[in-house]
């Protein structure tokens, strides 16, 4: 047996290596790769980890900004849920409803294939710097992602209880409410909470484009080279994510079978 040199996997490896080699030539390797003050700035940023600024003013700003960030995230998630639940339910592929499943999947794919920042650009261009733009920019892609996961979770539940109800004379929608949804719900909730954490992070990012919140405060602190203040806001962001995580754990424990 002669080794097959032009085996597709080997060709792909060579192509990728060639692409890597070419990309190295595209980088300028002279001293301007990292600007001269770069290392010093990184050192200062990390030195400030243990010295967050805790003045009353900064804390007041941090609480207000956290509230804005959480409010955008919560409103965005509400819109996402309103999109994801009906579309996810329709998108689950069961043979009896292909006609509804294909368009539902197409919508979900469209919603999630565009990143929230791109949606944000579109809506800021259309609506200006309004909170509505941020909520739409968060809610639409998150709805697409959640709906897709809901469809999968609703499909992958244990089949035996479903078969049992079918032989007891129940049709698909009755089975949906009495077996599929209750069995998938804990995982659906758990994933929703995870996406809520992501929404808080995304909401902070949104504020970089001029919608208030923790992201904008972080940006302003960086502009002022006030690393201590920046860490205060970052710690608030971390705290928000941790709170959602704890909340999610508590809810999941209550829903365990």
């Amino acid at each position, binding site marked *: 047996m002669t080794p097959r040199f032009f085996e597709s996997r080997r060709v792909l490896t060579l192509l990728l290596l060639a692409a890597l080699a070419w990309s190295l030539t595209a980088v300028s390797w002279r001293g301007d790769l990292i600007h001269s003050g770069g290392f010093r700035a990184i050192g200062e940023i990390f030195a400030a980890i243990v010295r967050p600024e805790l003045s009353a003013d900064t804390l007041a700003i941090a609480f207000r900004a956290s509230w804005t960030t959480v409010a955008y995230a919560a409103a965005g998630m509400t819109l996402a849920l309103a999109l994801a639940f009906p579309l996810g339910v329709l998108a689950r592929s069961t043979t009896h409803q292909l006609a509804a499943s294909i368009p539902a999947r197409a919508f979900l794919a469209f919603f999630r294939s565009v990143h929230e920042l791109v949606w944000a650009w579109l809506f800021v261009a259309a609506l200006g710097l309004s909170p509505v733009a941020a909520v739409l920019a968060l809610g639409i892609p998150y709805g697409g992602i959640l709906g897709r996961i809901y469809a999968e979770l609703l499909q992958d539940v244990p089949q035996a209880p479903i*078969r049992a109800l079918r*032989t007891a*004379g*129940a049709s698909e929608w009755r*089975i949906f409410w009495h077996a599929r949804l209750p*069995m998938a719900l804990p995982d659906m909730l758990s994933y929703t909470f995870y996406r809520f954490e992501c929404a808080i992070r995304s909401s902070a990012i949104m504020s970089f484009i001029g919608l208030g919140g923790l992201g904008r405060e972080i940006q302003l602190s960086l502009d002022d080279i006030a690393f201590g203040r920046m860490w205060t806001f970052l710690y608030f962001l971390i705290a928000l994510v941790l709170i959602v995580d704890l909340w999610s754990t508590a809810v999941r424990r209550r829903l365990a*079978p």
Partner: protein
Amino acid sequence: MASASSNSPTAIQLDAVGKSFGAIKAVSPLTLRIAQGERVALLGPSGSGKTTLLAMIAGTTAPTTGAIALRGKPLAGMRPGRDLAALVGMVHQQFDLVPHLSALNNVLAGRLGQWSAAAAMLSLLWPRDKDRGIAALERVGVAQRAYVRAGRLSGGEQQRVAIARLLLQDPAIILADEPIASLDPTRAEEIIALLAATAQETGKTLVASIHAVSLARRHFTRIAGMRNGAVQFDLPAHQVTNDLLDALYALPGLRDEAQSA
């Protein structure tokens, strides 16, 4: 095949019913009549075709050959749904409850065939036909566990809930596929006694596959022994001898030696 209830109306009629999975013959063509109110135990080693036979009677597996009629109605072409559910219901080894719902909601699911989709949805919040559900749970002895999630019940309690669900479905024929295989001996006898008493009191027909010979003798009117997809004997329970049972469960090698000796 003479049975005490041979003059009762026919509940289950099998005519040359067989099932093959590809080249493998699960059930050789067999003809069998079970009268209304009979309690038939299917005995036989694992792989003898008991489960396949029950699945064919339940209408969840189509036979390869032959025809099945339940109370005179041909099963072929009947889709799962209200009409089939009124004829035949099944309990399984694994109980098949929805673990996240309360025992009561699991029992009430036996009525799903009768409800509209909207009623089915609302019943999760405000249980519908609740009195019937509680009565069924009382009947099987677990009414005090009505609001406990099914996943938190013991195996014996879960099987009782599954039987209560069957009581609400109210089929004329109850099938049980190894209903006690995952229970301890005490729980097992309680469940079999409960199934038999339920069938007897409501005049339902019961067909159950089990491995416990003593339980089959005590609680059933008729015993059919299956081996390699064929019925080896089919007798009133009191006529089944230990020799017949030994031959039924003998390992193939040992049996050949016994025959040649």
